């Protein structure tokens, strides 16, 4: 109990000099050392838990974005067939794709573009006429559309020699599995982090409460009802929990906001685009901010309820 702000010389409360005495000191001292330590513990744990929450949401959002990017694109491959003009087959395949319902954009890769795709393996200056290299058409699906890809595949194989359709299903499945694993792992870490936060907060609250045992006993002996005593401590510790939670959660929100702003500022640069490709926009979105706010409230409630439980336990030992 260090809430002893007083005149050093007289050991009195200056506000009472010459005035009517007033009983306005909180029954539970506000600025105790244990209270400040508890706020610090809550702030640190809430900050770490909020970072974990944000990271999980970031992974989930990025994984969903990768997946939808890949799923929005399909590739038509036209292999050279003896005695057939590959350019004509390519045009024919592109026409079929364009005419198919639900298809947005169809872009056949030119000879030069196809050569550039093979440059890393075959070197520059490549002439595709010399090699039986397949040609590709990138097809973007119209937003919101769900074209019947099986039908498109049938149309292509029936009408275009050497044509096949790759809807990236294998990639999407693999991507989905990877994203799901990442998110489940992240949620596991988050659960551990939240459990560690709650336990730390509960133990720190019990520690802070130990210094207040004398107050609990005195209140009990002068006839205060258990509900009154528990209420006093619960209110006090709810405020401490909210203070710590707001500091920690607020710092995490600020960090995410700054990271988001830096990400937006760096977009267009090579590094920024690389980061954006990996982590999306670095923004945790409204959902992320709401999750951090919920964490702050939960931490404060845990603090308050722990203090209530400790008071009740103390009262049980006093009686």
């Amino acid at each position, binding site marked *: 109990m260090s809430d002893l702000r*007083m005149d050093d010389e007289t050991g009195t409360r200056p506000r009472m000099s010459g005035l009517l005495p007033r*009983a306005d000191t909180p029954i539970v001292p506000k600025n105790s050392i244990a209270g400040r330590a508890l706020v610090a513990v809550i702030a640190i744990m809430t900050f770490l838990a909020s970072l974990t929450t944000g990271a999980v949401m970031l992974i989930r959002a990025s994984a969903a974005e990768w997946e939808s990017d890949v799923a929005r694109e399909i590739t038509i491959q036209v292999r050279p067939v003896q005695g057939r003009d590959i350019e004509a087959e390519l045009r024919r395949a592109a026409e079929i794709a364009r005419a198919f319902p639900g298809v947005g954009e169809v872009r056949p890769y030119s000879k030069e573009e196809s050569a550039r795709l093979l440059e890393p393996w075959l070197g520059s200056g490549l002439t595709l006429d010399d090699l039986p290299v397949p040609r590709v058409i990138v097809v973007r699906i119209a937003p919101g559309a769900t074209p019947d890809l099986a039908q498109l595949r049938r149309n292509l194989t029936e009408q275009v020699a050497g044509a096949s359709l790759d809807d990236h299903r294998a990639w999407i499945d693999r991507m989905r599995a990877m994203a799901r694993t990442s998110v489940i792992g992240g949620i596991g870490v988050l659960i551990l982090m939240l459990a560690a936060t709650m336990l730390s907060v509960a133990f720190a609250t019990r520690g802070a409460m130990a210094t207040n045992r004398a107050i609990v006993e005195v209140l*009990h002996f002068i006839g205060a009802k258990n509900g009154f005593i528990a209420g006093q401590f619960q209110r006090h510790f709810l405020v401490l929990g909210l203070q710590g939670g707001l500091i920690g959660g607020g710092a995490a929100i600020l960090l995410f906001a700054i990271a988001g702003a830096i990400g937006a500022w760096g977009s267009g640069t090579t590094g920024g685009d690389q980061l954006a490709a990996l982590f999306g926009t670095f923004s945790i979105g409204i959902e992320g901010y709401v999750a951090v706010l919920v964490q702050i409230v939960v931490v404060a409630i845990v603090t308050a309820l722990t203090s209530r439980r400790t008071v009740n336990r103390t009262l049980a030992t006093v009686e």
Partner: protein
Amino acid sequence: METQAPPALSPSWTASRVGGAALGEAMLWQANRAANGGLETGVVRFENVGLRYGLGPEVLRDLSFHIEPNSFQFLTGPSGAGKTSLLRLMFLSLKPTRGLISMFGKDVVTLRRDALSVLRRRIGIVFQDFRLLDHMTTYENVALPFRVMGKDEDSYRGEVVELLQWVGLGERMAALPPVLSGGEKQRAAIARAVIARPQLLLADEPTGNVDPGLAQRLLRLFIELNKSGTTVVIATHDIGLMDQYDARRLVLHEGRLHVYD
């Protein structure tokens, strides 16, 4: 070293008490006694009470005694005889392992927690170690019982100030306990114990930490409170103090009680 002037035993606080609430309480007690068919035989009634801590031996054995309203008694005995345990039983912070304890006509074993809290408000206790809250002023410490009852400060401020003046702490109302002398703390603790006009006042070694002069003044304070209608039990092993006032003695020895009226 006690620097404060001796408690000015102004008659005003006691007079207002005798003329007001104390008489009302006495009448209420009489009415209660009649309602119980005359079964209520005192403020405190112990019948064959035994107490043990855990699986240990009985520290109190077969205690049977009554404490009448408006009476004054010393509770004495050698150290370790069980004085504090007996006070705790009377103060409802312990339950007996056997026997019957009736406080103000109510069997304490059967009462619920909140009912015990309400009953506890009829009892004032002065702890040997004072138990003042260090972050609150003397005034706030003394006013605490009213605060926990949820009373409006305007309704009790005058009463608290008057009592503090009565016990000689009128100039120390704004002082915090860490800067009070032992005697001042003792008087503040007594003031807190009696401010809500308890019917029973229990004091555990109230003169244990003070010099003989102050011990005498504190005894006079208890006698005044008793005259104003409060039943007083003082636990002490100070023979000198007991010799100063002719009162009933409850002597504890090896866990058994001997009453000397």
